[in-house]
């Protein structure tokens, strides 16, 4: 039997953050991970994160994972158990786990459950045909093992996962035939939706999948408009389900934590207090297993659980605990769904969420109304940044990137405002924006500077095809400048004729 101060189940962003927090206070930590690598979902997330500049906003998930894993490996207070599945937690405080094909016993003072989430499935005809994938599997195959799931794909679900995975599939050359969304509004962040629309990928709101076609493998799908019942056939060899996650709660159920069914948080979640303490003594929870949210929230919750569990052992209160709670509140300021879920747990009682405006066409299609764009185009300037960022989301890297302080924001969740007199059109904000929502237009030079995350990267002087916000071809023109960036969001400045200058948003290299 091995003794530890804190035993953490799950080596994703929440679990790692818990381990680091406890190790910082010199406690002895055991970190259990079922898979062969630490990092959880971060190791497949190639997109840049939103959030505050202080909390790795603008950094790609894979790089956050590397940083966290390095930190864990440099701490001798943390024993990492990979390929090790926790099997049970017993009344006498003993945890059993399968370590190197042997069942071992551990006795920690506190345990933190950070087991993450499980993908929800969807019932439709022939949903057992080979070629029907969960989005997690597609991301693992593609981004961890370098294997394409297929050639033509239909995505089900327009939440952030559906949108982001569609974009990643397009990056590796898979044809995304469409994104199907049952509700009338796009579920994920609208900047992600605009990113995929620019590639010419349609989003079918108010639609659902009713049938997978094919005999021995997927050859297509039938989708249906939920209002008119009109059907449409789409050919594809992969159907990817991104229809939501539910907290993974095996251990919580086993030890009789009080659970509550809260749809806003993904299903059954443990009743917990503001320090991530469950109703069972010495048991804490963090990350998606306590309710579905983003990875940034998971890292903060993990750190909070780690620090608070440590406090109960050492009796020294780290003031970072209160700081984290404030950060979490800021992060959740516009997440009405998460906050209404937390209220059902008697948390965030007097917390008021900023109401999200209905953004009309943008919310339904991922493409903003013409007027919305015209309103943000400076009238008296020749070269300026256009920020096609209309939704309140917790994100601010553009503000800090501006050398002339031309970009301002009321709060982390505010909408960026441009002072056209100060903007010099340098393009720094274009490079850092996690939503790829900023462009620099030069009316005199007749050019547009845009972010480009595809291969091959065009050369200066090359002719490329220029596309609008819906992926429609506008014209062919010449690349004026290429800035290759370390974080792989390259900047391309392309010549665009006057009539298309306010609509050119993507380029395609002609091979």
């Amino acid at each position: 039997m091995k003794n530890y101060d804190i035993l953490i189940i799950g080596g994703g962003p929440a679990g790692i953050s818990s381990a680091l927090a406890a190790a910082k206070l010199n406690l002895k930590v055991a970190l259990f991970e079922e898979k062969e690598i630490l990092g959880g979902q971060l190791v497949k997330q190639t997109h840049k994160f939103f959030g505050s500049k202080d909390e790795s906003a603008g950094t790609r998930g894979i790089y956050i994972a590397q940083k966290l894993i390095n930190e864990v490996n440099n701490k001798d207070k943390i024993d990492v158990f990979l390929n090790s599945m926790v099997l049970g937690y017993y009344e006498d405080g003993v945890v059993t786990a399968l370590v190197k094909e042997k069942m071992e016993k551990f006795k920690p003072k506190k345990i933190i459950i950070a087991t993450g989430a499980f993908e929800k499935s969807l019932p439709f005809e022939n949903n057992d045909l080979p070629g029907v994938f969960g989005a997690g599997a597609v991301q693992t195959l593609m981004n961890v093992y370098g294997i394409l799931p297929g050639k033509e794909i239909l995505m089900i679900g327009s939440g952030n996962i559906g949108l982001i995975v569609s974009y990643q599939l397009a990056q590796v050359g898979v044809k995304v035939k469409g994104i199907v969304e049952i509700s009338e509004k796009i579920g994920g962040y609208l900047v992600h939706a605009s990113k995929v629309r620019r590639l010419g990928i349609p989003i079918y709101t108010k639609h659902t999948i009713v049938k997978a076609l094919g005999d021995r493998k997927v050859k297509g799908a039938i989708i249906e408009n939920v209002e008119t019942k009109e059907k449409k056939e789409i050919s594809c060899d992969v159907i990817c389900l991104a229809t939501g996650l539910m907290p993974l709660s095996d251990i919580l159920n086993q030890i009789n934590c009080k659970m509550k069914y809260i749809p806003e948080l993904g299903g059954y979640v443990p009743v917990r207090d503001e320090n991530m303490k469950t109703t069972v003594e010495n048991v804490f929870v963090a990350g998606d297993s306590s309710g579905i949210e983003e990875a940034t929230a998971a890292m903060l919750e993990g750190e909070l659980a780690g620090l608070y569990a440590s406090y109960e052992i050492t009796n020294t209160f780290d003031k970072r605990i209160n700081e984290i709670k404030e950060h979490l509140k800021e992060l959740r300021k516009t997440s009405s769904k998460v906050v209404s879920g937390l209220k059902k747990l008697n948390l965030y009682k007097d917390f008021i969420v900023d109401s999200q405006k209905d953004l009309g066409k943008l919310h339904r299609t991922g493409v903003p109304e013409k007027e919305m764009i015209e309103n943000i185009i400076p009238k008296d300037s020749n070269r300026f940044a256009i920020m096609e960022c209309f939704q309140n989301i917790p994100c601010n890297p553009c503000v800090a990137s501006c050398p002339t302080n031309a970009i301002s924001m009321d709060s982390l969740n505010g909408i960026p405002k441009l002072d056209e007199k100060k903007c010099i059109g340098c393009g720094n904000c274009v490079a850092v924006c996690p939503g790829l929502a900023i462009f620099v237009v030069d009316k005199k030079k007749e050019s547009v500077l845009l972010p480009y995350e595809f291969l091959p990267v065009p050369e200066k002087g090359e002719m490329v095809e220029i596309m609008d916000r819906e992926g429609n071809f506008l014209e062919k023109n010449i690349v004026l400048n290429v800035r290759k960036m370390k974080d792989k969001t390259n900047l391309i400045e392309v010549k665009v004729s006057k009539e298309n200058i306010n609509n050119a948003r993507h380029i395609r290299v002609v091979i």
Partner: protein
Amino acid sequence: MDEEKIIVCRCEDITLKEIRDLIHEGYTTVEEIKRVSRAGMGPCQGKTCGPIIAREISKITGKPIEEVYKPSNRPPFGGLFFKEIVGESNEE
């Protein structure tokens, strides 16, 4: 819609038709359906089918999800060989 071609429990190959028939026969909790049909007794332990069956019961009976679906788990959570518990080498 062909309910016989919709798989609810992937591990035990149980269709939506079988689940709906059982609900109409009077099995109206996820636990009862698990015991008569084996839905949820495979490798994933009901993580895929549990929520879907719960929604079906709720839709048909009008009872809230929390009343018809209360997951319970027992250790060990994963598959385990006896040799991994007792430590005997397996010579095949």
